[in-house]
């Protein structure tokens, strides 16, 4: 154990000696770090890792940060790191893993996901974008929506219908799409906040090589499920310090701004603080269970509870502003920079958190998942079961 830790420290020091961060181009350094197996140590050798336990990563990151080394700005490539990488590891060929994972990890190539459609939101398995076989490729037509990062992305995870004559879950397949392919049209989707964090993506006779299929033809739903599992953990999880996240800002203002200390808000402030602390502990317990090999179903409950907490905390933040709460900062159509988030007014957070209970599984869908899969209550009636997708009412 200690030998392995010492070995990692030695490898970090060698990387720093051979590529001094202050004198090395950022991308060159990140590529060298990947090649040294220090990107994600739990990945195999040759794919940015050393086949070690993921628990050792933190020490590597800390040692590199202390030396002033650049990081890969993970917040700017959340889909790539959180969802694409695990699914590539499971389903892609060795060659594809070689070529995709390195620029994915460094952030040179951003990834996005093309799942939701205007007609397939919570009912994602009803997706209707079509893929027709043509030689060694597929020709894709349709419209995808709610695609964050599509305007920056080089690659997309794509869910399409390869056989409309089968029931909805059976006729889907899963591909990796090069966003530079002819026929891909990315348009900003403006939200109620004013900014365009998301996109609509139109696919018009887009050719995707069959070699870029992940999983068998007709296995797309299973691959998607595996991908979304990673998303829910990523959105709901995270064990922070006490009083971190949105509640930290509210608590800081309460202590430092006498005008924010309104008597009528005190009990609500305490409720939110205690909610945040209890979810911090529930996340910690979830992480401990996962570490012990029994993660359980808590992820859905955490996602549900974190969405409510974020919404209620943002409402409190607006209330602390008093009359100033009605002043907005900027309605212009802008693209947010996730790797360098800026401070916005409380009204922005209030509006943005409306989406927390919609994106990544609505709170209603999560409640159905908990009641059916955890509590064992009867499933909702499925009127679309065993009916060919093409015959469903749309």
């Amino acid at each position, binding site marked *: 154990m200690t030998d392995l830790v010492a070995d990692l420290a030695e490898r970090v020091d060698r990387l720093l000696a051979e590529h001094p961060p202050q004198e090395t181009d950022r991308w060159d350094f990140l590529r060298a770090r990947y090649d040294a197996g220090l990107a994600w140590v739990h990945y195999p050798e040759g794919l940015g890792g050393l086949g070690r336990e993921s628990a050792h990563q933190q020490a590597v990151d800390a040692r590199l940060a202390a030396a002033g080394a650049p990081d890969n700005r993970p917040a700017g490539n959340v889909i790539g790191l959180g969802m694409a990488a695990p699914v590539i590891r499971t389903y892609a060929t060795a060659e594809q893993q070689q070529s995709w994972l390195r620029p994915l990890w460094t952030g040179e190539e951003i990834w996005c996901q093309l799942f939701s459609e205007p007609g397939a939101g919570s009912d994602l398995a009803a997706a209707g974008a079509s893929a027709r076989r043509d030689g060694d490729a597929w020709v894709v037509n349709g419209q995808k929506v709610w695609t964050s990062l599509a305007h920056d992305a080089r690659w997309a995870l794509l869910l399409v219908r390869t056989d409309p004559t089968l029931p909805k879950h059976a006729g889907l397949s899963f591909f990796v799409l090069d966003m530079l392919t002819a026929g891909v049209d990315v348009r900003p989707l403006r939200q109620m906040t004013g900014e365009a964090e998301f996109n609509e993506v139109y696919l018009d006779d887009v050719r995707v090589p069959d070699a870029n299929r992940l999983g068998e033809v007709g296995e797309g739903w299973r691959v998607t499920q595996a991908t979304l599992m990673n998303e829910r953990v990523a959105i709901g999880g995270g064990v922070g310090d*006490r*009083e971190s996240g949105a509640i930290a800002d509210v*608590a800081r203002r*309460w*202590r430092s701004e*006498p*005008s924010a*200390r*309104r*008597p009528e808000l*005190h*009990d609500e*402030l*305490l*409720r939110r*603080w*205690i909610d945040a*602390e*209890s*979810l911090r*502990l*529930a996340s*910690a*317990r979830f992480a*401990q*269970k996962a570490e*012990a090999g029994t993660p359980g179903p*808590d992820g859905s*409950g*955490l996602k*549900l*509870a974190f969405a409510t907490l974020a919404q209620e905390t943002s409402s409190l933040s607006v209330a602390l502003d*008093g*009359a100033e709460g009605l002043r907005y900062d900027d309605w212009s159509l802008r693209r947010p920079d996730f790797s360098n988030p800026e401070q916005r007014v409380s009204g922005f957070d209030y509006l943005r958190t409306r989406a927390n209970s919609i994106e990544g599984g609505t709170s*209603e869908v*999560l*409640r*159905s998942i*908990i*009641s*059916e899969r*955890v*509590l*064992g*209550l*009867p499933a*909702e009636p499925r009127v679309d079961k065993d009916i060919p997708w093409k015959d469903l009412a749309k």
Partner: protein
Amino acid sequence: MTSPFPSLLYSDLEDDLRATVRDLLKDRCDVDAVLRRTDGAEAFGDEARAVWTALVGDLGLAGLAVPEERGGAGASWREVAVVLEELGRSVADVPFFSSAVLATSLLTRLDADEPLASLVAGDAVAAVVAPFGGPLSASGTVRLTDAGLTGTVPLVAGAAEADWLVVPLTDAVVLVRSEDATITAVPSLDMTRRLSDVTFDAAAAEVLARGPEVGDHLRRTADLAAALLASEQLAVAERVLEMTVDYVQQRRQFGRAIGSYQAVKHRLADLWTDVMRARAVARYAAACAAAATSEDDADLPVAAAVAQAVCGEVAQRAAEECVQLHGGIGFTWEHPAHLYLKRAMADAAALGSTAWHRHRVARLVDLPAPSPLDATVSTSEE
């Protein structure tokens, strides 16, 4: 917060302990038996006394967290929390919390070895003489003079079962034998944990502690007891959720199990999420209670207040939902739902209400209520 973050899971040892206690209670303390006993005039009749004897005599649970050099088992408050979960599941009518947690932790802190030895051996029961439905505090009206102890403390938990009465006064803690006091059982909202008015009339009292540190002893005892009570509340919530999930699958109306209606399913999903949260705070509080030493409380005060604020509300809401989703049968005397509702209500008030604990958090983490000056400032700005 300097100590490493504790495990919030259950150890194998804790799982074994749980199985042992559950097994005992299944035979002797099922909820129908508890319901029947609550109708009796006597708070601690032969049947309940037999359960108690099995717990403290056969299993030796009274001194679980007491150090071995004082005759205890030398385990920790984490294990006691697991026992409380099992007793909570059964709404058991035994004085475990009042004697083996509240009184035992206070007597341990005061180095009162003689009464402690009799508690740990399972030979005696003790109660802390303070009103159960509020923050643990010293009686301001009971007076200790050369003639003895005189005065009345209302609504004390576990006094009717007790051999020893531990009485906190403003500047002392004294010990009285129960036969030297008048203990009058009162009809209690929670019939499974009955309360009594305790009156002293020049009673013989032994001083266990005296001086300004009495307040500190009480506060730390209250923190520990509040941290542990959360485990009982967690188990009440968990049990009523189980009962309700079972019931909505059996009960059919309009040709369907009522548990197939989304309005019902989603309420139960929310409750499950709350129980998940309650378990995390209760386990953390128990771990902090186990880690606290006589010199260092570490994070126990915050952990206890958070656990009470969360678990008090979750248990009460879960019991309310249990009644509602059982419909008419849930409102009857014969159905056990009311036992859990009453226990949840009493627990939410015990050692301070959930609102009181929220405001204790405010003091502990420096989120103070607005001062009069703040109000002036904010008014003038508006």
